[in-house]
């Protein structure tokens, strides 16, 4: 299927529509909540939690014996939350650092989950097939019910986020101050963490355990480059996330043997790369350009200063001097001279230059004004 074909079928084909809508909503909610994770320096929490959710899925299946998505996701939510609070407990109660705590929960929970999964597979009666889709995710298994669930959760998150907007914002940037203001930081903190875990659990079915962390991080990291305002960042992250979902689904649908999760992650990574390079405020490209511009400005000023030092010893400030003497001066370059001429600060005649009165004034005030 060609890409154009995909977009033309998008509105008529039920499956395509469901999957696209699902990945778009997932991308949006991940972008939204991921912004909090990134700003709170909890970027890798997503990685740990998505792995920690696995035993929850397995245990939920062992207890209920059903493959109902909602019940399995509930199990994932519970074990994800246990993992999160254990990480927190380790960091506050022992001298283990957060990276060790994250890595421990990630690998130990996941290993335990694998043990349970292989144990389930050996059970004779269980209809266990399909549980392992949570490892890598299968967007193709999304049905309307799942998409509705995602939409409802996204809606609830949005409403709560708007209700607690002020608290979220202040906690994000100054936790101590929030506490002194009398806010219940613990409650807000748990609320944010709960939402992050919720977003991760929702994504498990679509992109899977392994790639979930990228869904959470990439849109937010991209959005961060374009703005310094939290509200704008969250909206941008949601948009980037949604687009990653849609484009990823489109690309993977247009070719054979291309799993959706990894493609979505790669599309999101492209957004990040683009933002890193081209964002006007922080991007590498413009930063480099600004650096270059500053260096040129400095050269120009140094040359002008040098000229001024020569010119002020003469009675006539516009007395011509040979260009050659500028060669001793490192800041001098042909382009610098041209620029000075364009600003009408110097006049160049043949092999000589002379300072104009405008240039003289500019040079005299060089270190007063800026």
């Amino acid at each position, binding site marked *: 299927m060609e890409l154009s074909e995909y977009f033309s079928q998008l509105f008529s084909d039920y499956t395509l529509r469901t999957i696209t809508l699902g990945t778009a909503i997932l991308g949006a909610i991940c972008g939204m909540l991921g912004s909090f994770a990134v700003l709170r320096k909890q970027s890798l929490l997503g990685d740990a939690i998505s792995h920690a959710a696995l035993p929850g899925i397995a245990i939920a299946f062992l207890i209920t014996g059903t493959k109902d998505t909602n019940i399995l996701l509930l199990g994932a939510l519970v074990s994800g939350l246990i993992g999160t609070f254990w990480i927190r407990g380790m960091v506050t109660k022992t001298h283990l650092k957060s990276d060790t705590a994250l890595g421990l929960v990630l690998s130990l*929970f996941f290993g335990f989950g694998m043990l349970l999964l292989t144990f389930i597979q050996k059970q004779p009666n269980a209809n266990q097939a399909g549980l392992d889709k949570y490892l890598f995710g299968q967007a193709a298994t999304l049905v309307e019910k799942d998409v509705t669930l995602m939409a409802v959760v996204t809606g609830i998150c949005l409403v709560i986020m708007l209700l607690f907007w002020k608290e979220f914002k202040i906690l994000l940037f100054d936790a101590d101050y929030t506490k002194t203001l009398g806010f219940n930081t613990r409650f807000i903190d748990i609320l944010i963490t709960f939402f992050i875990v919720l977003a991760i659990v929702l994504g498990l079915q679509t992109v899977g355990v392994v790639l979930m962390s990228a869904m959470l991080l990439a849109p937010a990291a991209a959005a961060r480059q374009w703005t310094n305002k939290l509200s704008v960042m969250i909206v941008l992250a949601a948009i980037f996330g949604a687009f990653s979902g849609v484009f990823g689904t489109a690309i993977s649908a247009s070719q054979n043997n291309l799993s959706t999760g990894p493609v979505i992650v790669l599309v999101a990574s492209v957004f990040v790369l683009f933002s890193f390079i081209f964002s006007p405020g922080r991007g590498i490209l413009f930063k480099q350009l600004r650096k270059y511009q500053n260096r040129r400005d400095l050269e120009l000023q140094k040359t002008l200063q040098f000229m001024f030092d020569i010119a002020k010893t003469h009675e006539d400030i516009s007395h011509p001097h040979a260009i050659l003497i500028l060669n001793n001066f490192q800041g001098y370059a042909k382009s610098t001279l041209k620029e000075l001429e364009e600003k009408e600060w110097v006049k160049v005649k043949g092999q000589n230059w002379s300072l104009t009165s405008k240039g003289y004034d500019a040079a005299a005030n060089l270190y007063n004004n800026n």
Partner: protein
Amino acid sequence: MDAQIEIQLIAAVVAIACAIPGVFLVLRKMALISDAISHSILPGIVIGFFITEDLNSPLLILLAAVTGVITVMMVESIQKTGLVKEDTAIGLVFPALFSIGVILIAKNANDVHLDVDAVLLGELAFAPFDRLIIAGTDVGPKSLWVMGAILSITVGMLFAFFKELKVSTFDAGLSAALGFSPVVLHYGLMTISSVTVVGAFEAVGAVLVVALMIAPAATAYLLTSDLKKMLVLSVIFGVFSAIGGYWMAHFLDASIAGSMTTVLGLVFLTVYLFAPSKGLIAVMYRQRQQRTEVSLLTFLLHLNNHEEESERHVQHLNEHINWQKVRSETVLELAEKNNLIKISSDIVALTPKGKEFTDLALEYIITNKDEHIEHMKDDFFLFRG
């Protein structure tokens, strides 16, 4: 050799080979780098596999190790731009590389016998079937030789550069001043870690390599602060979990790698709860005791400050010092037991010993010598009845 023994031997060797670099990763706060490497070597392995068609080929290990080091370099260069924080940089790099690996496998799934499950989860039970045959003689399972070689290199490097590693881990600045380049040691450690991850991933899978690297080191770290002891302990925990995990898998008929991790988890949980000075229970007990000590001090100072009887009435202590009932009773009891106060008709008064104690405490607090208050606990036989 019996297949059972071979599997346990491989598991133990993998565990030791992972535990040693793991100690340094945990101490250098780079535990998650092992997670990143274990995922991002996937494209290296896949490309190597396309070229050699052999999962045990040295070229494959080399390519994967190079990918691991490239991952570290990418993470560091993203960090250096200052656009995102360190952990975000890790979180951006490895899923992207992993995705490339997954896509490469999926696109060529028909031609190669390499599936993502095997890479992620490994299958130790099959390791004995892949034998190394030299000149017609069977010398044992291939992976045992591969991991054995990696382990001996790791141990060799550990002995050769122990001092340098130690200094650069705890004080990078000092190490640079002494003339050992922290950069060289850093990349050396990263290379060793990458090679180990690559060698181990086939046996235990990408995620469980992380468990084998971090969990024994973290467990040992809760028990000791001595680097040498920590290394020895993590090796012991690793080997114990490897062999225990094998038998658990044997009885449950489940994944060996999963069981090994579960045993690692149980060992860690036990130590986390019961470690003598750094375990959760010890820490909670100590915190409780400290809280009582601080309360006692506050209480005595309050008594010292107030002559009027209304302030010193037992019934009013709760509201005056803002304590819950339980805690005020504990503190009252403790103070009385230590002869610091005496209670006559519900009015609390300081004894001479209590007065002396409070005066000393006040003096230390005023002169800002808070550390002396610790000694006072011993001088006045507090908490000893």
